[in-house]
Structure formats: C-alpha cells, structure tokens
C-alpha cells in the first residue's frame, strides 16, 4: 500500500504545481508531501526487511529489500532537496534570476523527476526499468539547462546525448537477456521475478555478452569512468537542489539497474565474471577521478568528480561480493547520497553569494556565511571519510572486505586514492573556507528552510555513523538477505 503513496504523491504534487500560484506556499506543501513519502518508504523498508518481497498491481510492481533500500535513499534526498528548494527558489526570484512562472515550472519538473526515479526501483519488468531510467534523463535535462545560459544548455545537450546513447546499449543488453530467456524454451517475459528462479539454465555465453552491454549502458548513467564525461558538466550546471538529486540518487538508480542484472548473472553461476567487471570499472573510476580532483578549479565540478570517485568505491564494494563488502557498499550508497547532498547545498549557497564557481576566487566563506561555512567544513570531513562520520565506516568495511578476500592490490589502491583525495579536498576547501572576507561583502543571513535541510542531513551523517558501530550484526544480516532476491 505504501508504494502507492510513494508513487502517487509526486504525481499529485506535479499536478499541483500547475495550479498553485504562490510558489512559496507550494514549496511548503511540496516539502510536506516528501515528508509523507519518507515515512512511507520507511514502512516499506521495514516490511521488506522482515517479510520478504511484495508484489502489487498484478506483478507490475515488485519490491524486495534491495528496492526498499534504494527507495529510502531517494526519499531521504528528495525530502532534503524539497526543504532546501523553498529558500533557494525564493532567493532566485528575489534576485530576478527566474520569474514566478518559471518557479512553478521548476516544481513541476522536480516532482516529475522524483516520480521517474521512484519508478526505477519499483517496477518488476526490465523493459519498463529501462523506460523509467530514460525518463529520468529526459526530465532532468530540462533541470540541467534550467538557467538557459550557454554553459547550461551545452551541458544539457551533452547530458541528454551521451546518456541516451549509453542507454541504447543497455536496451540492447536487456533484449539479449530476454533472448537468453526465450531460447531456453520458456514463455516470453521480461519480469525480473520470472527470470531469477531460472537463471541457472540460461545460456551463459549470451548472458556474458548481455551483461557487458548492461554495464556499459547503465554504467554511463551511473557515471563510471571512462563513460563519465557528461557528469561534471551536468552536475556543475544544474540548479543546486537538483545537483544534489543528480549526484546523490540519480547515479544510484543506475547502479540499482546494474545490480538487478548482476543478480541474474550471479545466480547463473558467473560470480567471478561479475566481480572482475565491477572491480575493473570501479578502479578505473577511482583513479581517473582522483587525478581530476587534485587539479580541479571549479567548486561544483570538484564535487561532481568526487561523485565519480564514490560510485567507483560502491562498484568495488559490490564487486568484492562478500557480505561485509556488500553491507559496506549499500551503506555507502546511503552515506554518499546524504553527504554529497549536504555539500551540493553548501556549494549552492556559496556560489549564490560569491557569484562564481572558481575556487581560487572564493575566500572567507566561514565569515560571510557562518552556518553554511561550518556545515561545509564538517561535510568535507564526512565526505572524505573522517572518523566519527558514516562514510568512514562504510569505506572501512569495504577495505576490510578487500583484505579478507585477499585482494591486497585493490585495498592498497583504495587507500592510496582515498589519501590523495582527502589531501586535495582539505587543500581546496581550506583555502576557500578560511581567510579574510573579500572587500564589500558582509555577513549574510540564511533562510530557515535551508538551515533545516543542512541539519537534517547532518543528523543522518552523524547518527548513522555512531549507531552502526553498535548495530553491525544487523547490517550484515541485511546484506546477506539483500542479494537473494
């Protein structure tokens, strides 16, 4: 039942955005809507964790623990983004960057975007999964090109073209999966729940080829290097709350799609194949992104490259495949979504005040924006994996799993890249956050809704980090159930 709330509320809000004329009022309604969605997703999480899978709508919707985890992550970030949007869009209107009408358009797209993302983990049919992911691209392209400047339109075009090509390959992979299914003498179906039980009798050669296409296709959308070239452009040009959604959850929905196919591959007895490919792409992403992070000048692009790095870590975690690694990876999906959203909100506030992206020209953020500055400082420590915060724990779990699996080289590479990235982040943000206030700038007040969004996310970062130290057995239990389907 809760799934109808989750899918229904964004649609209702999208319709509402067309009719409610006062955007400030609508922003608050929007926020309440996503609070309800958050509660519903918690209910689904609880139900699937104890009762197994849920089917609804004559097999159209299929939810298991894996989908519940991703739905929860999406709803957390969507709620935070809705909260942050109230103040952010208000400021945009006050500064005459956008009109009232365009603000309504923004809320319409925001809700449609969230709806399409919620569809991804909810649908059972792998063809509809593809359609949902393509819909996320098409809708968010408008949000990337929202400000209609030369840069943003260029970014939107690259985004839509590269992701569409990538996703065409994913469709090819999906068709090959259904081909493998049909030549084994079973009736025509693309339902995931029909495929998994018979995975062991499917033709392994075709599955292997198909998975390559899936990985390249959805990997483009997930931002795995070397298909990541659209990502820094799109993330740096989008509206700040949307950057958080893009980086925090859109990439994860593509990871989710890869995992769905990956489970079929694992069940067909090709675990080693899955492991090698995931680790290969993960390591490439990690190494490439750490190089770009080191030399980056643009604030939002820095955060975008950091997303590629974290997607690499997640992919390595799922690739390692032991329960500890999977627990770490799934936790990392959540932690990265929360911490990266916090950082993008911070970057949004900073860019608004300083009116530039170039980190060399930004100084004294803590003095100009005390609240955002301190949150960004804590966020940097959280994002790079400092001790009391949650990312530290998930990264630690993945590295430990790599050591216990005997993949010393991967563990060493992970540690090296994390070290480099930590240094680079402290260097870049240290220069920006501290230092003297530029001339002609005063301390600037921040809207309450923005502050609440920061506090909500920060509470999750700290809370999860501290609670999980005592609850690690439950987490391992969840991870073991996760990939069973």
């Amino acid at each position: 039942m809760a799934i109808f709330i989750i899918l229904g509320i964004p649609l209702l809000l999208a319709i509402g955005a067309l009719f409610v004329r006062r955007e400030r009022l609508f922003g608050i309604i929007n926020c309440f809507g996503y609070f309800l969605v958050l509660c519903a997703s918690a209910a689904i999480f609880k139900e699937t964790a104890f009762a197994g899978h849920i089917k609804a709508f004559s097999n159209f919707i299929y939810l298991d623990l894996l989908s519940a985890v991703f739905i929860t992550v999406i709803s957390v970030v969507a709620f935070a983004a809705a909260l942050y949007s109230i103040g952010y869009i208000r400021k945009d209107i006050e500064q005459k960057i956008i009109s009232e009408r365009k603000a309504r358009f923004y809320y319409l797209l925001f809700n449609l975007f969230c709806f399409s993302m919620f569809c991804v983990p909810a649908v059972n049919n792998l063809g509809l999964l593809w359609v949902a992911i393509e819909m996320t691209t098409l809708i968010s392209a408008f949000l990337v090109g929202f400000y209609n400047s030369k840069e943003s339109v260029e970014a939107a075009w690259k985004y839509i073209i590269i992701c569409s090509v990538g996703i065409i390959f994913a469709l090819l992979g999906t068709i090959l999966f259904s081909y493998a299914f049909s030549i084994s003498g079973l009736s025509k179906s693309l339902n995931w729940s029909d495929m998994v039980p018979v995975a062991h009798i499917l033709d392994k050669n075709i599955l292997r080829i198909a998975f390559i296409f899936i990985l390249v296709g959805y990997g483009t959308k997930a931002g795995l290097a070397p298909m990541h070239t659209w990502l820094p452009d799109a993330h740096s040009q989008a509206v700040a709350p949307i950057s958080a959604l893009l980086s925090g959850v859109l990439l994860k929905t593509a990871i989710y799609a890869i995992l769905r196919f990956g489970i079929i591959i694992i069940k067909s007895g090709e675990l080693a194949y899955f492991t090698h490919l995931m680790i290969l792409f993960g390591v490439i992403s990690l190494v490439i992104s750490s190089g770009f992070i080191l030399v980056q000048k643009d604030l939002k692009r820095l955060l975008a490259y950091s997303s590629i790095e974290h997607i690499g870590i997640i992919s390595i975690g799922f690739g390692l495949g032991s329960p500890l690694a999977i627990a770490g990876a799934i936790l990392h999906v959540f932690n990265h979504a929360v911490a990266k959203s916090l950082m993008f909100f911070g970057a949004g506030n900073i860019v608004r005040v300083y009116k530039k992206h170039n980190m060399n020209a930004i100084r004294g953020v803590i003095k100009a924006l005390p609240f955002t500055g301190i949150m960004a400082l804590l966020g940097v420590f959280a994002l790079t994996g400092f001790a009391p915060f949650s990312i530290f724990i998930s990264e630690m779990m993945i590295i430990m799993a790599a050591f216990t699996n005997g993949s010393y080289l991967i563990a060493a590479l992970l540690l090296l890249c994390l070290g480099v990235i930590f240094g680079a982040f402290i260097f870049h943000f240290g220069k920006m956050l501290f230092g003297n206030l530029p001339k002609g700038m005063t301390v600037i007040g921040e809207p309450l809704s923005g502050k609440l969004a920061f506090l909500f996310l920060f509470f999750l970062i700290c809370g999860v980090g501290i609670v999980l130290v005592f609850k690690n057995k439950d987490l391992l239990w969840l991870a073991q159930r996760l990939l069973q389907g």
Partner: protein
Amino acid sequence: MQGIILFALLASTYLMVIAKRTPALIRSFRYQSLCLFAITFIIALTQREPDLYIVAGLLFTLKVSLIPYLLYRIIRKIKVNEDLGLFINPQLSLFWALVFTYLSWIFASYLVSANNAILTGTLAIAFFVVLAGMFLMIFRMTALAQIIGLLVMENGLFLFASTVSGGMPFFVEIAIFFDVFVSVLIMGFFVYRINKLFTHIDVNKLSRLKG
C-alpha cells in the same frame, strides 16, 4: 520477400552513411523506417497477432510520418547551413560501413548457435544498423545528425528485438515508442535553444565546459 526488404533496409543505411546534407539523411531515415514497418507488417500478417498490427501502425505514424516531419520542420525553422559537416568523407565512411557489416556478421554468427542463415543475416543487419547510428553520432558535427543517429540506433534495436526474441512484451514496446517520441521532442527543443544561443548547431564547437 522478407529478404528483399531487409536488403532495402541495408541499402538505406548505406545511403545514410554517405549522405552529405541533412535533408538527404532524413529522407534515408524515412526509407529505413518504411522498411522496418514493412517487415513488422509482414510478420503481423503471418502470425495473425493483433498486437503486432498496433506496433506496425505506431511505427508508421511515428517513425515514417511524424518524426521525419518534425525534423524537416526544425531545419526550415532554424535556417542554418544544411551541410552535415563530415569528419570523415563519404568514401571512407562507406569503407568503415562495410567493415562494420562484416563485424556484425561475425557477432551474429557467434550469437546464433544453430545453422540458421536467415536469422543470422537479420541479426547481422540489425547490429550493423546500431553501429551505423553510432557512427553517425560520432562523426557528424551537427546536433540534428546526432538526433538522427540516435533514432537509427533505435531502429536497429527494434529490428534486433523483433527477430531474436519475437519482440518485447506489448506494453514495453508501447512505452519505448512513447519514450523515443518524447526524446525527439525534447532534443528538438534543445536544438532550437542551441541555435538561439550560439547561432549554429555545430556540436563540435560546444566546448565551453572543460576539465
């Protein structure tokens, strides 16, 4: 009969690879979609499935009529140079197209285990069409050519799906059609915007974002 149509489809794809101007590219795309429609219609006739008639009808309305019409309209409206801006000249493009055809044949015979020449041939052509679309997207400079390249890839996939697995489930097929149509609309909208902001649609010159 089916063999002849498949051959026509292959020929129309070669025409697209050597086309120098955008209208010629759109025209060949229309021929290609028409061939695809004919194949689907013949399958529908032989198998007597009502779903396939609907799919064929959608193929005709969307890919043969509506989408080419929209693309022509964009050309008329934005009034830019109609040259495609080739990175690789037609002769060399044709050479590469032949190489791709051979590679797709190898891929198809790897995929089909039984000795089934018609299925292998269809698969090879379908895969070649996907590769040709990719080629158009990479080696032609205008934004419009990229849209058409994407559509060509999608056509190849459609052929692929209808031969190897007897088509996708019906509602998935409909959803994909809807999706393709919406994506053409949205991309067309962005072409307008690019033309307005940059006064050209040469994607090779879109290079403000780096690093």
